[in-house]
């Protein structure tokens, strides 16, 4: 066995470039979306069953804070994941692979995602 070597990996002490933030948020938003699949199916189900059920769902989303937050979180996560996913695929095709382009496209994703999240918030509230 080799002697225990020191590990210098305190994540709170790192300064992360914006591309790294986009990357980890892409992963986090993906996991959030997985966890919220049942909510999406529940909403689909109850908006299709009947008019009364549909109206009940509309009311639930507008009245219950937890439900409203759940829907807002799902849609925000989806928006971010989609936008950073598109950036990912554009880079797969070879566009914008330099560090500088990567930084700018990362900022663009943040800007667009922020707009989307705010618009979603307005729509839900």
């Amino acid at each position, binding site marked *: 066995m080799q002697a225990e070597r020191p590990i210098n990996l305190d994540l709170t002490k790192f300064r992360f470039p914006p591309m790294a933030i986009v990357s980890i948020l892409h992963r986090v938003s993906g996991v959030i979306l997985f966890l919220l*699949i049942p909510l999406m199916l529940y909403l689909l189900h109850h*908006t*299709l069953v009947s008019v009364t059920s549909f109206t009940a769902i509309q009311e639930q989303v507008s009245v219950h804070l937890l439900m409203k937050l759940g829907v807002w979180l799902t849609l925000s996560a989806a928006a971010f994941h989609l936008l950073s996913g598109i950036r990912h*695929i554009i880079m797969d095709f070879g566009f914008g692979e330099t560090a500088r382009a990567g930084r700018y496209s990362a900022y663009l994703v943040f800007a667009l995602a922020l707009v989307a999240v705010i618009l979603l918030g307005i729509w839900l509230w």
Partner: protein
Amino acid sequence: MVTSKNRRGLRDWLAQRITSVLVGGYAIFICVFILMHQPDIYQPWHDLFSSLVMKIITLIVFISLIWHAWIGMWTVFTDYVKRVAVRAVLETLVAILLFGYLLWLFEILWSTH
């Protein structure tokens, strides 16, 4: 299903790209549909999902989604869960949940007329 170590990386890489386009396209369609039918959306929404074509497309997209989600969760677990026994349990749980969701969607779509 997986019989070779050699092609799995490429297969999963390609699967993520293709499934993401299908799911992303569908999500954008749904958003546009919802925005175009404000404020009285119940009837058009109901009619949309009564159509056989929409049901089939929705299922194809959802199957893509669960494959996409599976690869994503598999990657996350492989990166962070080093204990094989724990990872096996988590992966099995995710697989069962995803398959269950698919069955739920069948029920949702086929009870809509």
